[in-house]
Structure formats: C-alpha cells, structure tokens
C-alpha cells in the first residue's frame, strides 16, 4: 500500500510535469501498453499508473472533456480487464488498485454522457463476473462497493447496460446476491442494498427475469439462511437460562430483525410478482413449518428408538409422514411466539400477514401439508405453490443461479428448485424427496395448484377435515391447535414467561396495519371454543392475568400487566359507541383487581418521604412511557426467563421487583395502570392525578400581586458567586423568588419557582444570617443537578431563622398534604389503630420533634392519651352531634356511589393549593410575616390577645363566601357548624383582618378559635394523630369526608409552631385549652 513514487524515475522517463493533464494520461496509456503482462517487476508501476488514471479521469470529468475521450478512444477499460485476468504477479495487489480506480471513477463521475460511454461496451459486466480473490478482505470490500456504486446508478435508462434481455444476463444482481450470506456483515448489508436498488427500478422485463430466474433460488436460500439463524437463536435461548450470553443473544435478535426488515423493505416496494414468490417462500418454508409447527405440543415419543434419536438426525427426512413431522426441527414455544410477534410487528404485506394470522386463528395440522392456500388464492391469481417444509434448499444459490442462467429455457423456478426439499403434502404428490428433476416436480406442483384453485371452499373444508382426522388422529379433537396454544400460554400461574410473549403476539396481530382491523376480532368472536367464543376466552385469560397481577407477591412483570390491560381495552372495544362493552362479571373482575391493588398499595403507604417521591416518580414514568410493543420486542432479554435482579441491566418494568422499594414501586404502578384502565371503562377523566395541579402553579415570569404577602428579602449567592437581590415567597406548594415589578407597586415577577417538597435547607456554621438552600428536581433519585443550589443571605439572624423554619415547615406541609391526597386516592380505611394511618403518621413525625419541645400545653394534642382527654373534656356532647352528622354524610356518600366518592376529593384537593397569580392576595397563606415585624412583636402580640377573635368575626368582609375556592361539601359542612368552625374552614387569614393585624397574630387567633370550636378536637384528632384511641368509626368518617378541613388544620398546626414566636405560644396554648 505504501508504494514509493520512484517508479516514475524508471526507464520510460519523459513524464509530463503536470500530473493532471491529458499528456499525463497519454503517458500512462503508454505504460499500460508496454506492460501488458503483470510481473513482480512492473507491479508497482502498474498500480501507480492505475491510481493516477483515476485521478486524471475525475479531473478530466470536471475540467477537460478531452481526457475522457482519450480514455474511451483507447478503450483503456479493456486493459484493466486484461490485467485483472492474469493470475501471476500478486494480482490481488493489483486488483485492489484496479477496483479502487473503478470505484473512484463511478463514484465521482458527474457527466452523464461519460457514464454511458463507460458502461456501453460491456467491459463493466465482464469485470463484475470476474472471479476475484474474495478471501482478501480488501478485494471483497472494494468489489462489493463497486457493485453497490453501480446499483446506485441504476434507473430505467441505465438498466439496459446491466441487464441483457436477450441473453438473460444480469451480473450486477446475480453476482451480488451470491454474497447474501457472506460472513462479513458490511458485505451482507451491501448485498441487501444492491438487491433493493435493483428491485426499485421499474423495468418489467428485468423484474420478470428476477422473478422467473432468480427469485425462487434466492428467496429459498435466504429463508433457509434465516431459518438456520433462528435455530442458533433458539439454542442460545435454551442454554442461556442464567442470562450469561446476553450480548450474543441480543446480537442474534438484532440480526434477525435486520433480516425481517429487509424482507419487509422488499415487500414494501410492492412488486406484485416478486412479493407473491417471497410470501410463498416465507410462509411455507419458514413461518408455517418452523414457527407454527413449534406451537404444537411436542408429541409423545412413540418408541424408545425415537427418543434416543440425535437432534442432528432431525433434519433427515423420512417417508413416513407422522414420524417425519415429529422429527422436523422445532424451536421452543417461547421463541416461536416471539418470532411470530416480530413478523406481525414488522411486516405489513397484507397477503402474508393475513395468511399467517389465518393459520394461527383457524388452522389445524393440515396446514403443514397444504399451507395457507385458501387465503393466498384470494390474493394471487396464478399461484405457484410452494409446498410447506423447512429444510435446506438442494442447490446452493450459486449453483442454482448458474443453472438458471445457463439454461435459459429452464422451468418455472418457484417450484423447481425447492419443492424438492420436502415431500409435497398434497395427497396426489408422490413423497419422493430426493428427486432433483425439476420438470417432474414442477408438473406435480402445478397440478396441485390447479387442484387447489379449482375446488370450492366447502370442498376444501372437507378436505382439511379429512386430512386432519386421518393423518392426525392424535390431535383431531383440537380444531384450532395453534390458537389454543397461544391462549394456553397466557396462563400465569407459574410465571409470566410465556404469557408476555403470547400477549405480544396477540397485540402484534391485532395492531398489524396489513390486516383489516375488525377481521381479527370477528374471527375470534365467531370461532367457538367450547360453549363460548375465543374472544370471550381471551378476555377471561386477560382478566385472569390482571387479577393475579393485583395480588401481592405475584410473579407477573409490569409490562405484562400493561399489555394485558391494553389488549383488554382492544378486545372489549365496541365499534359503535365509546364505552367498551364488557359483561358485568368481567367488569366486576377488573374493578375487583383494582381494589385489590389498592389494598396491596396501602401496605406500602408510609410516612417516609420516599413514598411520596416514589409515588410521583411512578406516575410521571407511567405517563412518559407509552406502551411500545415493537421496542419491547427488540429487547432480547424477554426471551429469557423473567428475573428479579437489576444486575442484568433489564429495565424495571421488564423484570420482577427486587427489594422493598421496588416492590412499593411495583404496587404503585400496578395500581396506576388498573386505575387508568378502570377509568377508561367508566369513560372517566383522571382528575386526582397528578397530585400537583399544574394549572395552579406559579410559573417563572408570572407577575404576582404580593400586597399583603409575606416577603423575606434576601440575597441569592449562586455557586459562581453571582449575587441577586430577591424576595422569598413561600406558597402552599412552592418556593418563589420574586423581583419587584417595575410598573406596579406591590407586585412582583417570579424569577424562580421550585417545589417546597423538594427543598433542602441547611444553616451556615459561620454566618448566622445565611442559609444554604437546594431545590432538587424531585423524585427519588437526587443525582440530577438540582434546580437551584445557592447561598441565601438574609438581613439578620431572625429573618434567616424565620425563613429556615418556614421552608422546613412548608416542605413538610406540602408533603403532608400530598400524602393526604394519596390516602384519599387509595381510600385508606379508617382503622384508627393502624400504625399506617396516613396523615397522622406524617404530621406526628415531621416537624413534631422540634415542636414538641417548645409547645408546652399544646403538646397534649400530639400524645394519644392527652388528646383523648382533651376530646372528652372539651366537647363530648358536640362530638356526638358531629358524629351524627358524619353518619348522614356517609349515607349521602354511599348513595352517590363510587363516582361521587371519587369526585369528592377533587374539590378538596384543589382548594388548598389554589395560589393563583391573580388572587394571590386573597387565598395565599404565608403564615408569618417577614422579619420586618419582629421589632414590634411583643406589642402586637398583646394587642392580638385582646382583639383577635373580634377582629376576625367582626370583620364585615370576612364571611364572603368564596365558593370557587372552597369545596362545596366543606362549605356546606362548615355552615352547618358553628361560626367558629366556619372561620376555621375558611382558614387562612382573611384579607380584611390581615389588613390591620399582622398575620402572625392572626394565627394565634385561629389557634384559639380552633381549640375552642366544638368540633375542633375531633378534627385535630382525625387530621393529625393516628394514634388516638379508636373510639368509633364516626371519627374516621369525619376524616374521610372532610379532607380539606383536616388538612387545613394540620397546616395551622404547622403555622403555629413558627419561628420566633414559639416562646409566647406556650402560655397561650394552655389558656386556650383550659
């Protein structure tokens, strides 16, 4: 390769100075002329000359047309041919250069006339048929690239240079496809490209040649090649139970997909005749005899001799049909289901998918002899029947092509070359498998075809019945053995290994674009399986999977559940109206499964932060990941037995859960999936999820009315030391950094928003005015870069502490609220003694620690014993009325049935978080003012003591019903109660009162109001403490019915613990409760 240029110093001398000129070409020509024989001594010179010729020709093509004229005039291509035909002198060395020159020539030439001239004298075809030394990788590479380059030049004009109609010669195509199974993948790819480029050319006579002379040999060999590959894949699956050779398997699968896509690309070119041949071969040489055959149960060995027979012997043919069928190669049913799924996912050619689906749905054992004749006849007018059977073609492609090309009058190829590989199953056909005489087989096959065409459907049916009963006594009772196998595979008692693949197949069949949508379903509905239809049987199977998946510790993967649910929707969909048609029993099963999944999920409901993160993560995941069965089926790991360990690298939904956290995730996801499906059946829209109502959130750049809001001024110092002056606003759910609005006094522009639940606050050891605040992106994994990570510098320590506490409280409150929403969602029952009891659990954990110390009297609320005392002390009588009312509400709720129950929390959920930019002043509730008030705290405090109650209730504007923010139920409920409780429902500081009282004061007032209010204790108990004595169900119901109140209550308790005011609080707490 690294040849010196010194060859030019040789005896010929006189080399023109200008490398790129006609003169130089003339000079090079003289070299070719003088060195017609390649020898060791002139090899280098020739190579360099050939290289230079390429250079000059391209230069000439772009600059000087005389160059090309000279090349053609001297017929220099013939010199090329002459050189390459010599065996001496290390010709592969020269050949590489020759092929490179040709490649450069054909790739870079722009002038179309030059191209035509180059192609016109048939030298190119002679070069193509030359037998190069293909064992040399470089020769092979340049050669196949040469063919590929030429194939890219093919069009209706140039086709005649390559395909000779009279001599039936098409070396570009026939030479290329000989390499279809070359070990080098790049070569195989090039072959596929060339063949597709050839088929693409719209030339009838060329296509006729392809079909008549090459299609059958090529396709039968291709199919056999694919089949062998599948046997290898099957071996890999059988031996690799431990996921050891994952990479090998995934390569085999990817390779098979390449094949399938290639076949699909051919079929998509929509060349009728070619497709008919290809369909016939695929169906009867691969799909039916290997895939479908593998769906039949392996027959019991009739004798010990059979049992001991070697697998290799399987390929040998036997005259006895039964025995032979027994010995046909088969793959495991896993692989068979998988391969069939792939076919339906990739191929859309109607006759092929229709026929294959027909075989699966209606076929019986007779199909192994007759094929899917019935369907194919309806698509193709003059079928050339290929007899089913999986086996090696008798001739290699090369031999076959040589025969075909050699004897132009040879027979119809489709039956000619491969019918010999199997006995033909039609009765009249002698089962002489070894007969190589094309003509004989051809006539037989023709006859069979004619027969098949001429008989009516009924006759055919009868024919099939007779064959199936006579030939297949053992299976006679199974009318649809393949469909039965597919349905049986759905059984998940042991695990979902087979079921997933069976679901994939059903999904792929029902979603294939090549088949008419209803056809599949109609066939299923009409065909009877015992007393009911297959469709019913399928639905039962699906429901079975779904029911099982809702059980704890089941062995069904999430992806299986998802596909099963999807299919359930598909097969219960009625054409006419929107709502799926399903019997009440079936619906009962589905909803039972949902409820069961809810029960399972309740066991995972925990007060820990991670549960909420998991819950929201899973919801987002589920929404993001659309079910894509095609992607799923590209994953070779579904061919291996299901496993639990993430060490395999298998995605979470495609394996079993590993460890408690993943079990929780799974329970959450199963619940979501079932909930979603149930809603589709009810024609309902999801209204409770996601937990955060995005509509109510403040977005960056929103302009907010911050009058009467609590603002804490601070300087945000980012990691790169950039400083920004901002005001910190803490909403029910969000942390907002605002910048004053330039135009409107008291308004601000949100510059940053983050969820309080994802806030992490840390003090600074060295600077008491400083906080390190990180706002994470949410979710369980914190490894992503946080939304914000910065140092916040406040004016003084007090403000800093205030901010810290409000952020900490805000975080836990936001989380409590969501936990409460979840509790509502999964209808956590009112088992008061349950340690899993929702909100109480969280609230007593979070923040409780700090509060308890400082609380003094109010601490009693947190301790079960005290609380109980508190309750009875305060208002035993009232609480009885409360209970009565709850009961009535319960009745109401039950009347409303399932729907209304689900609806009720909607309103509840939306109300507490309803900070909207426009009504910020009214319903946002930053519980504590910034540090600016701190100087006058004590004075205000004393004022508040005296005026608190009055200022709230006496306010003329206060009772204005804000129905749009308050859930109707709650509102009504509160009206039924004392005014005190109403004020507690309305909750947060009203604008009027706030206008003349610092908000901090108000909170004290509220606390006092709450504590004094008759129903307060029960609410407090219900809302905040799970460990209360399980007095009766009434309390529990109160909690369920009044989610908002109680959550509001919790938030008040959160408020009251705030900041610098804790000390004074002690005293008040005792006073209030007394």
């Amino acid at each position, binding site marked *: *390769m*690294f*040849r010196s*240029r010194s060859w030019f110093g040789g005896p010929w001398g006189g080399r023109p100075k200008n*490398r*790129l000129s006609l003169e130089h070409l003339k000079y090079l020509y003289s070299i070719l002329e003088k060195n017609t024989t390649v020898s060791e001594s002139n090899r280098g010179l020739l190579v*360099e000359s050939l*290289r230079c010729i*390429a*250079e000059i020709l*391209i*230069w000439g093509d*772009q*600059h000087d047309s005389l160059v090309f004229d000279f090349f053609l005039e001297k017929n220099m291509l013939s010199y090329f041919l002459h050189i390459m035909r010599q065996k001496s002198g290390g010709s592969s060395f020269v050949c590489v250069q020759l092929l*490179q020159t040709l*490649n*450069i020539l054909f*790739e*870079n030439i722009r002038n179309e006339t030059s191209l035509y001239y180059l192609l016109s004298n048939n030298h190119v075809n002679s070069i193509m048929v030359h037998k190069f030394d293909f064992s040399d*990788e*470089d020769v092979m*590479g*340049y050669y196949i*690239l040469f063919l*590929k*380059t030429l194939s*890219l030049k093919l069009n209706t004009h140039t086709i005649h240079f390559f395909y000779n109609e009279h001599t039936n010669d098409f070396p570009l195509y026939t030479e290329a496809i000989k390499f279809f199974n070359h070990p080098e*993948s*790049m070569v*195989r*790819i090039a072959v*596929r*490209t060339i063949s*597709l*480029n050839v088929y693409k050319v719209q030339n009838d006579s060329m296509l006729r040649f392809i079909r008549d002379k090459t299609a059958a040999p090529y396709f039968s060999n291709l199919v056999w090649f694919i089949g062998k590959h599948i046997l290898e894949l099957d071996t890999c699956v059988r031996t690799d139970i431990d996921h050891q050779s994952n*990479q*090998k398997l995934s*390569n085999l699968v*990817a*390779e098979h*997909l*390449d094949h399938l*896509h*290639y076949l*699909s*690309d051919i079929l998509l070119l929509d060349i009728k005749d070619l497709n008919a041949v290809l369909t016939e071969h695929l169906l009867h040489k691969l799909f039916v005899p290997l895939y479908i055959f593998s769906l039949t149960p392996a027959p019991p060995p009739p004798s010990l001799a059979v049992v001991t027979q070697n697998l290799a012997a399987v390929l040998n043919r036997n005259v006895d049909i039964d025995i032979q069928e027994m010995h046909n190669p088969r793959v495991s049913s896993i692989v068979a289901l998988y391969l069939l799924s792939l076919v339906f996912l990739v191929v859309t050619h109607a006759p092929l998918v229709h026929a294959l689906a027909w075989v699966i749905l209606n076929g019986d054992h007779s199909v192994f002899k007759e094929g899917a004749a019935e369907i194919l006849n309806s698509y193709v007018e003059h079928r050339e029947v290929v007899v089913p059977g999986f086996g090696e073609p008798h001739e290699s492609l090369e031999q076959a092509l040589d025969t075909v090309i050699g004897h132009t009058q040879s027979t119809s190829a489709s039956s000619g070359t491969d019918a010999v590989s199997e006995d033909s199953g039609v009765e009249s056909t002698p089962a002489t498998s070894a007969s190589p005489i094309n003509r004989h087989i051809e006539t037989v096959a023709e006859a069979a075809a004619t027969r098949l065409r001429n008989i009516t459907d009924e006759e055919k049916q009868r024919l099939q019945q007779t064959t199936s009963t006579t030939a297949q006594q053992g299976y006679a009772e199974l009318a649809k053995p393949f469909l039965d196998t597919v349905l049986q595979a759905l059984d998940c008692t042991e695990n979902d290994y087979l079921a997933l693949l069976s679901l994939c197949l059903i999904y792929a069949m029902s979603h294939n674009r090549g088949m008419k949508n209803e056809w599949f379903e109609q066939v299923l509905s009409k065909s009877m399986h015992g007393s009911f239809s297959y469709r019913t049987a399928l639905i039962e199977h699906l429901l079975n999977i779904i029911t099982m998946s809702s059980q704890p510790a089941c062995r069904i993967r999430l992806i299986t559940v998802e596909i099963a649910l999807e299919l359930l929707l598909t097969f219960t969909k009625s054409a006419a109206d929107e709502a799926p048609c399903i019997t009440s029993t079936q619906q009962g099963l589905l909803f039972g499964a949902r409820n069961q999944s809810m029960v399972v999920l309740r066991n995972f409901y925990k007060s820990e932060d991670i549960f909420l993160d998991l819950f929201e993560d899973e919801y987002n995941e589920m929404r993001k990941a659309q079910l894509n069965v095609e992607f799923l089926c590209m994953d070779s790991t579904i061919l291996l037995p299901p496993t639990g360990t993430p060490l395999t690298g298998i995605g979470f939904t495609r394996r079993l859960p590993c460890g408690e956290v993943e079990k929780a995730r799974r329970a959450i996801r199963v619940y979501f999936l079932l909930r979603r499906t149930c809603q589709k059946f009810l024609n309902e829209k999801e209204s409770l999820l996601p937990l955060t109502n995005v509509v109510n959130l403040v977005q960056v750049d929103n302009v907010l009315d911050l009058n009467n809001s609590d603002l804490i001024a601070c300087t945000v110092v980012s990691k790169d030391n950039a400083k920004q002056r901002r005001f910190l606003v803490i909403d029910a759910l969000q942390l907002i950094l605002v910048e004053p609005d330039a135009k409107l006094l008291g308004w601000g522009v949100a510059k940053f928003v983050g969820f309080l639940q994802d806030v992490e606050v840390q003090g600074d050891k060295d600077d008491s005015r400083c906080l390190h605040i990180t706002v994470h992106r949410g979710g369980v994994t914190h490894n992503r870069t946080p939304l914000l990570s910065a140092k916040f510098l406040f004016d003084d320590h007090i403000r800093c502490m205030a901010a810290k506490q409000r952020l900490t409280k805000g975080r836990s409150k936001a989380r409590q609220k969501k936990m409460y929403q979840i509790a509502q969602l999964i209808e956590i029952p009112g088992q008061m003694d349950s340690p899993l009891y929702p909100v109480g659990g969280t609230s007593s954990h979070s923040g409780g620690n700090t509060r308890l110390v400082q609380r003094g009297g109010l601490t009693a609320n947190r301790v079960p014993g005290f609380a109980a005392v508190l309750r009875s002390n305060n208002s035993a009588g009232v609480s009885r009325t409360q209970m009565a009312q709850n009961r009535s509400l319960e009745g109401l709720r039950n009347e409303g049935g399932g729907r209304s129950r689900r609806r009720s929390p909607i309103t509840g959920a939306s109300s507490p978080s309803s900070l909207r930019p426009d009504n910020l002043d009214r319903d946002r509730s930053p519980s504590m003012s910034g540090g600016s008030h701190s100087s006058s705290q004590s004075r205000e405090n004393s004022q508040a003591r005296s005026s608190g109650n009055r200022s709230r209730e006496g306010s003329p504007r206060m009772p204005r019903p804000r129905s749009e923010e308050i859930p109707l139920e709650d509102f009504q409920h509160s009206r039924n109660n004392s005014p005190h409780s109403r004020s507690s429902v309305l909750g947060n500081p009203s604008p009027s009162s706030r206008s003349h009282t610092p908000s901090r004061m108000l909170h004290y007032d509220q606390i006092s109001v709450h504590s004094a209010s008759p129903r307060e204790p029960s609410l407090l108990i219900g809302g905040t403490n799970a460990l209360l004595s399980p007095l009766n169900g009434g309390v529990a119901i109160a909690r369920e019915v009044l989610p908002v109140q109680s959550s509001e209550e919790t938030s008040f308790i959160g408020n009251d613990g705030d900041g610098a005011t804790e000390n004074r609080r002690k005293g008040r707490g005792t006073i209030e409760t007394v």
Partner: protein
Amino acid sequence: MSYAYLFKYIIIGDTGVGKSCLLLQFTDKRFQPVHDLTIGVEFGARMITIDGKQIKLQIWDTAGQEAFRSITRSYYRGAAGALLVYDITRRETFNHLTTWLEDARQHSNSNMVIMLIGNKSDLDSRREVKKEEGEAFAREHGLVFMETSARTAANVEEAFINTAKEIYEKIQEGVFDINNEANGIKIGQQATPTNPALPGSGGAGGAANSGCC
C-alpha cells in the same frame, strides 16, 4: 497483511460534507489534495500502529444506503467507531447532527466510539459554524471533537487515529467483547488464540491486581 485487530468504522453525515474525501484522504495518502479536484471513495482500509500493535482500520461510507430502513439499522450495528461529519460552511449540516446522532445511538451498540468532525476547516472565510459550537455539541453529547480539512489534510490522520485509540482503550478496559464480531472488531488471523486473549483479559487482570494490592 497481518494485524492484531481490525476496527470497522462508518462515516455518517449529510451528503456533501466531504465524507468520502476524508476517507480517501486517510486511507490513501497517494492521492494528494489538489485545489481543483475533489475525489472521494466509499470504502478504504489502512494500517496504523497503536501501542506497538498493528491495527487495521476498515472504513465504510454509508452513502446511498439511507433509502431503506433495514439498511440503516444494520449498518450502524456492525461498526466499532463512527465519524459524524458536518460541513463548517453549511449551517444546516450542523443542525442535522442531532438526527444523525439519535439514529446512531438507537441502532449502534452502546460502546461505539463516535467522533464529531467539522470538515472543510480550510474554508474559514465561508465559515458558518463556529468551532466553539462544535465543541459545545461534542461536550453535550459526550463525543470527541475535531475540525479537519480533507483538502489540506489537516487533522485527518488525527481524527481517525484518535478514534482508534479510544476503541483500543475500551478493548483494554474490557468494555468491548472482542470475540463478538458484531461489535465491529475483528481479531487478526495472525493473532492466534493466545494473542487476542492477552490484551483483553490481561488488561482486566492488571486492573484487578492493582485494585487488590
């Protein structure tokens, strides 16, 4: 010619960015770049030496194979390295990089080394894509970046050889399964069973040892 390894490369990118010229420039130095001549070829091979080992680079251009889905998907999978080329004088070729990269990532094996090449760096006066933009894109997607000129041969050697070095390192680390030809790596004929086992297992073993002691 004998070699220890053969690495298969593919070149991807819009048409006209100079893929085949880069290829020819690298594989056949005898074609000296001339101002008024553009020559390219879509296949080539060349021997290089890394770490004292003969390594053959075999480069396949994808030209003309984009029309069929089956071709593109299989094409990527068989390669150990990919050069993703754009033309610094044509903004749109840079804009299409994301699509190319998505395709490559979707179909290739995850270990494939991808190098981003901004070609035609000699045409600085007509530059539409800044070098920094290329660098930023490469950083964002974890690619190695280089600006080259097939015309002046600037950085062409480096682009191919650096990619090879990275593949070689991955082999040493045991990331590539070298016994699996579908990864685009082939062990040379002369390198009989002992030889191929050495670099892979030796490298891994060495690492393990140092970790233990």
